[in-house]
């Protein structure tokens, strides 16, 4: 297959995915962008969101990503995410729990503890991102 993309998703803890694909849609910080084979070299910051790609057999798959960078060069799409989870690996219950925990923390948080609020807010957004992705593919 001469014209295909190599998609690689790595996080600090592990390499999440390395696959040959036809098309990738990436949630960039300035909006989502699609990548097809032959794309010009491109670098973008990532937003919290959902990445999806089409495999060579035409299947569409989803990955929840959270912050980081995407680099496109020579038909290689490299995603350096702070965290990334394949849709099939997302645990609904855990995500629900995380959401509840973050909500509780936001409610109880002292207004002066700005760092804690930011952190809880980020955790809540991550949980919601996972949940919405899971609901979407169902």
């Amino acid at each position, binding site marked *: 297959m001469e014209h295909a993309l190599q998609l690689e998703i*790595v*996080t*600090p*803890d*592990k*390499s999440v995915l390395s696959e040959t694909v036809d098309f990738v849609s990436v949630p*960039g*910080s*300035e909006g989502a962008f699609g990548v097809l084979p032959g794309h*010009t*070299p*491109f*670098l*973008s*910051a990532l937003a919290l969101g959902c990445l999806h790609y089409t495999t060579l057999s035409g299947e569409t798959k989803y990955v929840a990503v959270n912050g*980081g*960078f995407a*680099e496109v*060069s020579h038909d290689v799409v*490299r995603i*350096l995410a*702070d965290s990334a989870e394949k849709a099939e690996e997302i645990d609904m219950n855990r995500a629900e729990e995380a959401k509840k925990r973050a909500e509780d923390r936001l409610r109880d948080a002292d207004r002066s503890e700005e*760092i804690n609020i930011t952190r809880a807010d980020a955790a809540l957004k991550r949980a919601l991102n996972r949940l919405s992705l899971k609901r979407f593919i169902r």
Partner: protein
Amino acid sequence: MPSLKDVKGKIAGVGKTKQITKAMNMVASAKLRGAQARMERFRAYADSFRDMLRDVAEKEAELTHPLLTGRDEIRRVGVVLVTSDRGLCGSFNSNLIAEALKLAEECRSRGQEIVFYSVGRKGRDALLKRGYSLAGENSGLGGVYPFQVADRLGLQLIADYLSGAVDTVILIYGQFVSLMHQAPRRMQLIPLQSEEQSESRAEPEGSASARIDLLYEPSGEALMQALLPRVLKSFVFKGLLNTATSEQAARMTAMDNATRNCDDLIQTLTQLYNKTRQAAITSELIDIVGGADALQ
């Protein structure tokens, strides 16, 4: 002369110690494999990151950022000391602590204040005992560091730097050189230095020109804004992973030595036991022979 029973008890005691050190050696070697695997997995991420930063820096050479430029006058030096939570790993922790104290001494002779941050219980205890106060600490993780630790520490360091609480930050960690060798190292975190700066310059010209037409969004400045803190965090994380791996390697070696010492000790004690037994038999024989002679 110790009694036979004493020696026998001692041999049994050393035997038990040997069992423990042997078990600890095996546990450490299992953990070492895990730590090495984590380091390996992180390398893929760190390498890609470095390339990316280089690409942007190449195109935006005139771009400046407080994390890159540093300050002219350095009055307060932030030092992050990474040690393990547990002991029994030879001189590993004391080497790291000695390195930190040496650095503190150097700073003091230059009239600079020092601000310590610690990761790991051993370093924290040593610093507190010497009367240093800690600006931040992380311990009780048992030597397995999730990325969040680096993330949080990185954020704190950047915030302290921007607020002027520290003017530069240096990380002290245990570099994993090989199974037999772990060395305390210093790494300057702020201002950021590309550790492979010289290496990247040696790259062939062709690849650089191919990158010139690189597009990116958001703008170069905003991208740097997002990229640099992550680079810092990835350096911190690298230090943490290296220290965790070194700790296990150091413990493996230390426990291996301890097991061998136990073997030596058991051998000496067994000889002593045999000697004592012989002596007891001899003295009993003398008694019997002496008694028989007296009867005749």
